[in-house]
């Protein structure tokens, strides 16, 4: 008993250490992203993370006796800021001293002058980027897809979980089949179909095909099999509750966590989808954020600062939404994980 009492706090410490390590590993890319969206273009590739003040250090003895003149010129640079030294002694002298190994740079405190919000300003205000419109498009596309896909999935799952009808078995098998079919199979025939239906370059063409999520029907079916008691439905019907009202007022509240979870899944999927919108939509003003960001990565050049700022803009709302829905998301997801 005595030893466990000592062990407990120790093992708790180890647990914390491991968790913090894992969290740090997970977060490093995000920290990098934040600085990558703030670092000024002049020093963009000179720092991995935050720009630092660099001061010039001269080595003890001149390693290149043949360049004695340069060595003399560089003497006053000792301890100066790199920018200052370049200005006073000539940029080519300082750079040469660095490449010849006479001088080195010492990084100090954060250099705030090289952190800038310009990338965000450009994206959000300059007309050629119309990012505000892109954000609105994304919100619309993701939220409408999420709402209707969740509704349809919940309805479908309800029918399959709680009713006996002739096509029940066939539909259940179809849903399971659709779960495991590779989506790439549908890319080409899907585009042809949208064209024949006249849905190219419309939001409908983008949203409609996403409204039959087999995974969602499956999840809702699983959840409702387990958490919607038949007695309750019968009781409600005896009470004179209509079938549609029964679904919205009794059944849906019972699967609240699953609704939250699935809304989030669909929102996330639509928000990050960029193959779909690029193929279906033709008018740039209809493009969602994901496409606008992908366009910042050019074939022959990339503007990193803008790209990273755009990425940050697109991640932030998703993070907020996840925070809001976190609890339901987790309990919802696992309620689908039960066999039925």
């Amino acid at each position, binding site marked *: 008993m005595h030893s466990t009492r000592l062990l407990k706090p120790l093992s708790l410490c180890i647990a914390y250490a491991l968790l913090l390590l894992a969290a740090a590993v997970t977060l490093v890319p995000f920290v990098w992203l934040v600085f990558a969206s703030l670092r000024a273009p002049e020093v963009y590739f*000179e720092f991995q993370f935050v720009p630092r003040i660099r001061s010039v250090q001269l080595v003890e003895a001149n390693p290149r006796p043949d360049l004695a003149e340069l060595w003399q010129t560089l003497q006053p640079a000792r301890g100066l800021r790199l920018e200052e030294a370049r200005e006073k002694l000539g*940029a080519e002298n300082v750079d040469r001293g660095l490449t010849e190994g006479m001088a080195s740079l010492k990084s100090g405190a954060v250099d705030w002058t090289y952190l800038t919000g310009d990338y965000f300003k450009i994206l959000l205000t300059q007309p050629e980027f119309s990012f505000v419109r892109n954000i609105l498009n994304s919100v619309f596309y993701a*939220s409408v897809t999420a709402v209707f896909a969740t509704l349809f999935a919940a309805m479908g799952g309800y029918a399959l979980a709680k009713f006996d009808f002739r096509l029940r078995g066939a539909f259940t098998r179809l849903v399971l089949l659709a779960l495991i079919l590779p989506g790439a199979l549908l890319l080409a025939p899907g585009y042809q179909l949208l*064209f024949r239906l006249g849905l190219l370059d419309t939001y409908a063409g983008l949203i409609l095909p996403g409204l039959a999520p087999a995974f969602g029907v499956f999840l809702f079916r699983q959840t409702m099999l387990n*958490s919607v008691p038949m007695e309750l439905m019968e009781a409600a019907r005896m009470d004179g509750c209509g079938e549609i009202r029964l679904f919205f*007022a009794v059944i849906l509240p019972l699967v609240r966590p699953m609704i939250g979870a699935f*809304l989030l899944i669909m929102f996330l999927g639509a928000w990050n989808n960029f193959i779909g919108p690029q193929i279906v939509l033709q008018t740039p003003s*209809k493009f969602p954020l994901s496409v606008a960001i992908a366009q910042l990565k050019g074939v022959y*050049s990339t503007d990193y600062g803008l790209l990273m700022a755009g990425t940050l803009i697109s991640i932030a709302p998703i993070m907020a939404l996840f925070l809001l829905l976190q609890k339901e998301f987790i309990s919802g997801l696992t309620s689908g994980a039960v066999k039925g």
Partner: protein
Amino acid sequence: MQTPVEPPAQSVTNHISHPQNQINETMHTLSLSPGSWTILALAGFSSIALLFYKDPPAEGLEFWLFSKHHESMYRQTIVGEADPVVSPVVISFQALERRLLSGFLSDTPVPDVVEVEIAMAARFFSGPLEAIGFLDLRERIEAEGLDRRINPPAFSPWSREGRIFGLPHDMHPVLLGYRADIVEAAGIDVTEIETWDDFVRLFSPLMRDFTGDGVMDRYLLDVWETDAFAVEILLLQAGGGFFDTAGRPVLQSEINARVLATLVTWTTGDTRIGANVPRFDAGGNRQRLEGFVICHLLPDWYAGGLQREVPGLAGKLKLMPLPAWERGGNRTSAIGGTMISIPARASDPDAAWEFAKKLYLDKDIAREMYQESLIVSPVMDHWEDAVYDEPVPFYSGQPVGRLYLEVAPAIPPRAPSPFLTIARESVIDALIRTRREAMNRSLVTVEAILPVARRELGVAQRHIEGKMSRNRFLQPPGETP
């Protein structure tokens, strides 16, 4: 059965014990969580907000391009003109390829005029000649003498079997960019370099191990065994490559084998001069800046790209012709490229043709293209423009345009093929296998490695022939299925 779900499981027991209460509680409120309500609200608000946005209807000629950069460059010409009215649409690379292909193959909408990149062009040139979705512009080009006004090899990537499917936007000749600050400090005279052997001999002393750990901290050239960009440049420069003008694969050639064997020596052991320095990549750009490599294979567009992406290199680089593979050999190569073309189903091919000419033959746009991105025009009328002689500070005051134009007539022709991607991958794979075997068997000279390179290129050749022969629509020209 166990239920690992807490909240629903609890509610189940609740309902079973007091179904009536629960019904009364929930009947009148559709109870959703704040998060769910947020998404619902977002759906509502954004729908309403979008109702107030009216998209200006696209009118006139529809012009698809994949480069935002190009669009802003053309904007003045496009916006200023009433005839023809043109609506530019920027579509990302993959999507443009997808949509255009779909338009050609199955009648989905196509633009009136479109800019096509070389990597996707090959795909459109596949299949039966009459199934190619672009208008054959040969007659128009010859009638107006454009074939004499535009540098002839610039047409090669856009031509198949005597047809020309577009006007070239560029030529993309390649020069060698070197760190003048480092090279000149060492007293090396680059005019003494004529061949790659000279290059290795004269520059090798520049490789350094600053940290004293026995590993070099400075290499000579940005080539690597997995670097398709560099391998293609070097193969084409040597006179090798992937396909002949008839579209037949020619991977297994003595020239290719020699380049591959040389590349193995450049990336291994004591003879190593190359380093893996990715392009358009934060890490790679930092390594260029630090001088981890001191020479870079620079097509004109990448010379411009480096100037834009790595301002810290300003004043440190100079350009020179590529060292040749043998004395008197070719001093340049070509990589990348764009054309403008007109889909066969375009609504008004004549207007599209006039527009394409205006854009691509225009002297002001050519000049702006150069000033913005250092890309030199393939239109020979413009070559006399003084803008190409202006010193470029980033490249130590050299007349960058002039240097590129001097080598431009010698750029190697490049035959398009729908199997280009596969061919490129096969050659890279052959190089990787050759390198591995050379290392295992401790082969260190080009001559010792050559037999391995020949054999592995043979494997690559058979691989691509196998792929091509399976395709019933794409029999090599001359052998009709």
